[in-house]
């Protein structure tokens, strides 16, 4: 526990949160939203396609969207680590933060299954592999991740 307290009370955190510059906390927070838009935005498109939106788009053509997701995820992993450090002690005792992290892990796992079993297959049988259920669960988990992420500000102030 003291490790997290140490991070939250560190000189880095003092500078990061206390600086008047817009290039510290505000910019990292904004990058976290940019990454969210790329990661979740691209995931939503893939999930909707699996759920029959835009059927003229061949599933295999969705592949570049996984690159958009990877970039968005990288931005959010890095910005998220910095944001976590600045609030570490409060976050590790906030249950809602664990719900957020679990939702993201679940959604990423589903995303990798969709990529492997559907997008990278030549002729996937969507019904056999429960593709629609995977896509619906992915949409649900991303929504939960966004909602709990937003509410962290209220439950771990």
């Amino acid at each position: 526990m003291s490790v997290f307290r140490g991070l939250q009370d560190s000189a880095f955190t003092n500078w990061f949160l206390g600086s008047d510059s817009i290039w510290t906390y505000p910019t990292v927070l904004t990058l976290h939203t940019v990454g969210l838009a790329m990661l979740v935005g691209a995931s939503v498109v893939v999930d909707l396609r699996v759920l029959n939106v835009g059927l003229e788009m061949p599933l295999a053509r969705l592949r570049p969207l996984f690159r958009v997701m990877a970039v968005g995820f990288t931005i959010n992993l890095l910005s998220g680590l910095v944001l976590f450090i600045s609030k570490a002690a409060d976050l590790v005792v906030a249950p809602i933060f664990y719900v957020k992290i679990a939702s993201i892990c679940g959604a990423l796992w589903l995303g990798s299954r969709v990529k492997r079993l559907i997008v990278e297959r030549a002729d996937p049988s969507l019904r056999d592999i429960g593709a629609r259920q995977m896509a619906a669960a992915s949409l649900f988990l991303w929504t939960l991740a966004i909602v709990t992420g937003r509410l962290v500000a209220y439950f771990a102030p």
Partner: protein
Amino acid sequence: MQAFSEWLEATALSKQLFDLAWLWPVCECLHFVGLAVLIGGAGLLDLRLMGLFRGVPLRAVKSFMPWAIAGFVVNAVTGLLFILMQPHLYLSGGIFWAKMGFIGVAGANAMFFETRLSGRALTMSADDEMPWKLRTIGIVSLFSWFAVLYCGRMLPYLGTGN
């Protein structure tokens, strides 16, 4: 604008909405979900217009547009509620008007595409090189939506209202 903002904040509607303690966080959650759906759907069309996803017919990416529009509607409604609840945070700050400006650019750009260019664009072969006019539409749209996101997220830090 200052006077309007003060008048709005003094209205019974503004006070009643502001007194609903749950409404603000609920609107925030919806606003973030809405932005992901909007940028996901619109971004796909923008990337296609920029020449990516060659071989995919424009019709196919356009079928995601109702979802992007739904995301926009959610954000317009929740955004309006934010303004009604705390007008001084928004109406008196330049960054808010910059955000509205970028929404205007994105909207006008989409309208121009829809009314002047999309008819011919939809008859193009999916393998054709994208003409520069359509590439420009895609770049302007993608840039504008991320500029909207930037202004919105930075609003508490760049805005003058408090």
